[in-house]
């Protein structure tokens, strides 16, 4: 029985390999055929972005100004992911445990953590000037929360960064994103309008420029950081025992 099981497994892997090879070859042919067609990049965004938005990073200008509504949808996807994970796994509970790392490592990392926070804050606040933005800086902040959990143990980390703070951060960031979008409707322009609402533009290339774009970057950073770190905490915790 074991012999026939191994044989059927080999046959299955061979069939999967043949199927995958034919699929990959046809995909290569399809992509090369499709990209052989003439395709001109749309340079309107690159030409007009500094005049329209005041942000010199065109990707941030598209994400936060031209397609701000898509960013709101993406933020709601993160919100849905957190809600579904919290519904599948129960509320996290951590039992008492000893920290894994030694005391020297913990003290050294405790002195280094404020330095670690400089990088995500720089990335978030300079999102319209240099590569980066709300998403990248927010994920870096979430990784720092995971670092405190791994190094200092779950109980101390949950005491310093409580789970309710993360949930409230997610909730209020989503709400304030919508309220900032309503600012455009009250001034008669449209949902999530940026410079047309009358906010000052600033000089492009300086830190305070781009109208609402730095504020939106900050909100998206808080939202992504809170959402992804609460995903990790929900996955890491044990389920509450039934009494």
């Amino acid at each position, binding site marked *: 029985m074991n012999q026939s099981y191994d044989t059927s497994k080999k046959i299955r892997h061979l069939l999967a390999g043949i199927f*995958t090879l034919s699929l990959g070859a046809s995909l*290569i042919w399809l992509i090369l055929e499709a*990209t052989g067609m003439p395709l001109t990049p749309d340079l309107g965004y690159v030409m007009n972005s500094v005049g329209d938005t005041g942000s010199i990073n065109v990707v941030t200008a598209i994400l936060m100004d031209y397609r701000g509504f898509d960013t709101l949808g993406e933020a709601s996807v993160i919100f849905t992911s957190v809600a579904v994970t919290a519904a599948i796994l129960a509320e996290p509970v951590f039992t008492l445990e000893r920290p894994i790392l030694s005391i020297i490592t913990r003290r050294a990392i405790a002195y280094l953590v404020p330095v670690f926070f400089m990088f995500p804050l720089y990335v978030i606040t300079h999102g319209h000037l240099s590569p980066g933005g709300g998403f990248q800086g927010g994920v870096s902040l979430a990784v720092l929360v995971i670092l405190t959990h791994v190094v200092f143990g779950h109980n101390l980390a949950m005491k310093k960064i409580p789970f309710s703070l993360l949930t409230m951060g997610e909730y209020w960031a989503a709400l304030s994103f919508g309220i900032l979008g309503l600012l455009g409707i009250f001034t008669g322009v449209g949902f999530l309008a940026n410079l047309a609402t009358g906010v000052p533009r600033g000089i492009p290339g300086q830190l305070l420029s781009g109208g609402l774009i730095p504020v939106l970057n900050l909100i998206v950073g808080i939202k992504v950081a809170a959402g992804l770190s609460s995903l990790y905490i929900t996955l890491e915790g044990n389920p509450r025992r039934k009494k």
Partner: protein
Amino acid sequence: MNPQIPVFITAALVWAIGIYGLIIHRNMIQICVSLSIMESAVIILLVGLAFVPGGSAPILDGHTGPFADPVPHALALTAIVIGAGFLAIALSLTVAMYRKYGTADVKKLFPWDETQ
């Protein structure tokens, strides 16, 4: 020399490798790894489409010249963050399955199936 053609071929190969892993594996963690590889292949394809020969990154800090197309970059950025969200849901389903059935192996959920 245009580097777009080898990038497209690599994207198709990596996507096919992800499909292969999705077929041959029965463990949920490895299925999630294969899903992550397939998602990366799509992002490689998007970034390769946005490439402009002789251009530079779309940050307008003074220099002129051709720039890469910024719209696929924004799309790829959105896709990466959403991919992290759906992988988190898949992994939490794996953990819930382990809590209920005591295994992360899809094969062991169907013990009456002799052919697998």
